[in-house]
């Protein structure tokens, strides 16, 4: 944990540095007529000081951290699958359409993340896709793309 915290604070340090540099390029203006870069530069500068303090704290703590043992298996692949599925859903929505996309999305999650039978996954996906389409596109008229099916 101590090492993770160290890298985390290092990330904030780099982030604030980049913010300061980019804000400076936006022009800071003068104190009586501040420019577009003034506010983000100030916030970045405060963040830089804070992350430096946090970084030193984490270096101090790094050696005093006890190792914790995990009770249950860490299922990291579930996180990857979910984030990949959400991203794929977003980028294919306009081409494939809401109904098919939702069906595939639900099937995938039900089959992969907490594996269910094919019957449960397909039925769950189908019911959710139809219900969501009626609720959002018909009832709320949200105009989510219908894609290749056309409805």
């Amino acid at each position, binding site marked *: 944990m101590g090492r*993770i*915290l160290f890298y*985390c604070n290092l990330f*904030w340090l780099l*982030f*604030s540095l980049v*913010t300061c540099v*980019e804000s400076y390029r*936006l*022009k800071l203006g*003068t*104190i*009586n*007529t*501040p420019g*577009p870069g*003034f*506010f*983000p530069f100030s*916030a*970045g500068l*405060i*963040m830089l000081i*804070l*992350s430096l*303090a*946090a970084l030193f*704290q984490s270096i101090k703590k790094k050696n005093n951290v006890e190792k914790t043992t995990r009770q*249950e*298996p*860490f*299922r990291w692949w*579930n*996180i990857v699958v*979910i*984030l990949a*599925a*959400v*991203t794929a*859903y*977003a*980028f294919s*929505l*306009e081409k494939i359409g809401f109904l098919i996309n*939702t069906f595939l*999305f*639900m099937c995938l*999650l*039900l089959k992969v*993340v*907490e594996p*269910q039978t094919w019957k449960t996954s397909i039925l*769950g996906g189908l019911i*959710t896709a139809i219900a*969501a389409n009626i609720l*959002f596109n018909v009832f*709320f008229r*949200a*105009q*989510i793309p219908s894609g290749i099916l056309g409805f």
Partner: protein
Amino acid sequence: MYSFEPKFLPEFWGSDEENTHMDIFKDLLFGFGVSLQPMNLLYCFFGVLVGTLVGVLPGVGPAAALSMLLPITFYVPPVSAIILLAGITYGAMYGGSTTSILVNIPGEAASVVTCLDGYQMARKGRAGPALGISAFGSFIAGTITIFFLIFLAPTLASFALKFGPPEYVALMVLGLSIMVYLAKGSIVNALIMVCFGLILGTIGLDQMTGVPRFVYKSNTLMDGIGLIQVVIGLFGVSEVLINVETTFKQEIFETKVKGLLPNREDWRRSIGPIGRGTVIGFFLGIIPGMSVVIPTFVSYAVEKKLSKYPEKFGTGMIEGVAGPESANNAASTGCLVPTLSLGIPTGAATALLLGALMIHGLRPGPLLIKEAPEVFWGLVASLYVGNVMLLVLNLPLIGLWVKILKIPYYFLFSLILLLCIIGSYITNNNFYDVFIMAIFGLIGYLMKKLNYEAAPLVLALVLGPMMEKAFRRSLMLSDGGLGIFFTRPISASFLIVALLILLSPLFLRKKRLREELRAGD
């Protein structure tokens, strides 16, 4: 759309002060006229129902639910939208207690403390009175605090008319400082989150010069990072990611709930805690950064302190349920005071309410009550209507809520994710927004793992653009002198309080060290 205006009602005789009070009642009557319109009643019902559902289900908080449903309200009139969204926030307070009492799982953070005595009451076969007193307590608190709100919000709004840009900057600094102070984990981490939020808030076109900032030729970023996508990611998606990384165990409650009406003895013991919880909840809820969670803990601590049997707290004392449950409902009304009268949100949920007002073309702030009376008074009256609905509906529906808890999590999380995607997408019908939501889902997940709190980030993201505008205007007004923030009494006092709040942990640590040294001697 609304044919009857409050000003058309007959004038009353009396002193100026009496007239003001009479005006308030006339306006409230007008508000009831608005909120009792069939469509608004329907939206109020839908809001409190969704709110209760959100409160019951662990893993979806009111902020995530608000952001998922906010885009749907684009298609309805502003007052109906606000009635619906507010219904979710206080409906969640009712729903949260159900799971705390029955299965020892708080549906949302404001009901954590209810687990302590509520669950113990359920284990002793007194789940009914515990659920009953939490519903009645919430109703009483909700009703009383509406009156606090109608007197305080207009007064505060007229006081806030004296505020210039420096006062607004100072007030926002104070709100953020309180949020930082109350955040779990280190203050430095919470301050980093505030800075991160402020920087994110600057993405997009500069409000004063029109210069694009941190956009990098992306059309999606030109309008800035959407609050809805950030909140859905940080509160909705991240919660799902946390739950699916390990095997999710679902507890199923098998006991039957009988006798929801508390007996005379229960009432005698609860009436004091309900009254105190109401006052504590409302006034703490007003303070930006407090949210609805802290007042419940304060109320519990007060009841324990005042009790003749403090040692029995945690074993099923009804006072430990009545106080906090009243406090969280009172706080959800209290939160509306700065949001509606100053345009300053107190947390993520009120930030989204504020966002909804802006999306509907309204200007939250001291002039809102004058410019959009139907929204303000309609909302205030709907709080009462919604509380009645919750009381009438919730007690008979407890069986249904318990059944909903039995929905398998593998299905529930898929559904939550789908709602997150739809909520992010339909804001602008832009699929890049879903991508942004996914990024913030991952950020939120990492933040939870590393003990960073999301609330300061969200509050800073909302306040950031307002703060920047007021800050730059203040500097222009003073011709570049930072003294403007310290020479004006209201602004100076806000800043001094903010400074004291931020420095207090240092003093407390020094004091503790000194005491430890003395003890060592």
